């Protein structure tokens, strides 16, 4: 009777993934540090004392103090140790602790991600159900065509096209930045359309399968109305693959957040990451990449738990 609780197992698996994410981010950031041109000791000394006040002796002091003369692996261990205690360091550009920067950006990124998921659900679910109730019908074929086209348009290209149409030509929404709720519409639409392009087909397939199932016929035969059968049985069963699929889309969502935030100058983590890479601000690169990676893991955990909530069969007795 030593069956592991699937809840604990899911938690442990995602926990392990979080550790792997932190390791990869840490190692790649360390490699970035090593790849910077010039002597790190001189660079840091210049940062501390100013370019005019810095000489070989002060650089040597810095080298001793920070252990820059130690072997490669010892420095890597120290770097990862700092990461393990959530010491993310200071931004080289802003001079503020990285963790403070991320704390303000996190809200904006989550807002955008939530907006995108809401848009995609609002589009994909009705469209998928309509297509799935009549497979091969007009709605089904039109939605397939639109999905294929939308799927082929990368998020940033879609963003540019939407900006040109809605913000520039029609002047309905602001072009970029964030000063109010209306700024949220175009970015979430950009990201949400990309998500909906595939998920509406998943909804459609799930509905088709559920409509063909024997238990649906039974529900109808025992006298349940078509409407109640749809709401109580078909949609609940169809929602399972859909929620699982949203988990698959999380990678697209995180990648999309990075790109779309940059297109719309959205003050979130993805925008900060791209800027940090551009400005060679390694502490910021590490912090933002870590934050995005951990959000990715956390969202996947939420999906795992949601699947359990929807389907009683996956719950352990």
């Amino acid at each position, binding site marked *: 009777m030593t069956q592991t609780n699937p809840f604990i197992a899911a938690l442990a698996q995602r926990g392990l993934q979080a550790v792997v994410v932190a390791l990869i981010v840490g190692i790649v*950031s360390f490699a970035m540090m090593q790849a910077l041109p010039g002597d790190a000791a001189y660079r840091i000394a210049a940062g501390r004392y100013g370019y005019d006040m810095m000489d070989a002796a002060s650089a040597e002091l810095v080298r001793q103090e920070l252990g820059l003369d130690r072997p490669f692996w010892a420095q890597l261990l120290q770097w990862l140790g700092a990461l393990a205690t959530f010491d993310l360091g200071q931004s080289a550009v802003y001079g503020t602790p990285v963790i403070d920067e991320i704390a303000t950006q996190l809200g904006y990124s989550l807002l955008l991600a939530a907006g995108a998921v809401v848009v995609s659900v609002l589009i994909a679910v009705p469209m998928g159900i309509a297509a799935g109730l009549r497979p091969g019908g007009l709605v089904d074929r039109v939605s397939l065509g639109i999905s294929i086209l939308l799927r082929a348009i990368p998020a940033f290209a879609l963003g540019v096209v939407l900006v040109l149409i809605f913000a520039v030509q029609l002047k309905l929404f602001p072009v970029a930045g964030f000063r109010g709720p209306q700024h949220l519409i175009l970015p979430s639409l950009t990201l949400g359309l990309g998500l909906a392009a595939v998920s509406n087909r998943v909804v459609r397939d799930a509905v088709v399968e559920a409509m063909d199932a024997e238990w649906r016929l039974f529900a109808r035969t025992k006298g349940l109305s078509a409407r109640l059968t749809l709401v109580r049985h078909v949609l609940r069963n169809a929602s399972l693959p859909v929620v699982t699929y949203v988990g698959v889309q999380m990678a697209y969502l995180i990648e999309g957040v*990075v790109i779309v935030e940059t297109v719309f100058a959205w003050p979130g983590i993805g925008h900060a990451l791209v800027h940090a890479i551009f400005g060679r601000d390694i502490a910021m690169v590490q912090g933002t990449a870590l934050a995005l990676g951990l959000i990715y893991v956390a969202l996947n955990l939420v999906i795992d738990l949601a699947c359990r909530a929807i389907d009683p069969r996956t719950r352990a007795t």
Partner: protein
Amino acid sequence: MSDMLLSNLQTARWPKIKAPRAAGFVMLAGLAICVMIGPDLVGQDPAKQSLLSPQERPSAEHLLGTDHLGRDMAARLLSGAQLSLSLALLSVLTAGIPGTAIGVLSAWYGGWVDRGLGAFADAVLALPGLLLVLMLAAIAPGSWWALYAGISLTLWVEYYRYSRQRARIVLSSPAVEASRLLGLPVRLILLRHLVPEIGPGLMTVAAFGAATAVTAVAALGFVSVGVRPPTAEWGVMMTELLPYWREAPFLILQPVACLVITVLALHLCVGGLHKR
């Protein structure tokens, strides 16, 4: 009778080419032809600036007009196509061949080899792919090779997972067991049983992988992290032309259209929509 069975099997494995797939192949062939003979037909240098004639409308001399520095758009788009398509092809080779080989190896040996390789693949995709590519590109900014190595590093996992899963099923089938008992060489077993079974699926993986590679390069170019500006690359061109939308909206839409057509062609030629 046996002929019928054979043809049935073949249609089951290689689905009949339908209109969307044909369209995809035609688009892809068209792109390839444009890339090969286009630069000669256009006859313009993609890097040659002409500050006296910026943002010109399409004319006989400049088929698609000129950009903000007076460079010929058609020549630049073709040069971008060359870069994108060769990268897509290269990514298929360098991610596809090792990925498939490792997948088959994993299925063949099983046990610790399988678990170790599986854990490595999971670790690579613990981060969303583009995030890893972004960070790797940051190690050596502006370097084409770092960018490309990052893309290959994330793309091989897809090949690995597909070929491993399919190969496990095929290798445990009675037909393969019989061939093994007959003492047929491993090479023959792989060629006769495995290749026909995983070939078509690998084509799909390859087409989507190529589309992902093209998109990633353009996306990174667009956010100024990938290929650097003087190079004619579609994403970079979009960034360069975006400020001029008011004067010349037709310019910014050209690289967008090229990118969408390429990705669409790749998606269509393996049968349209695929669950990512």
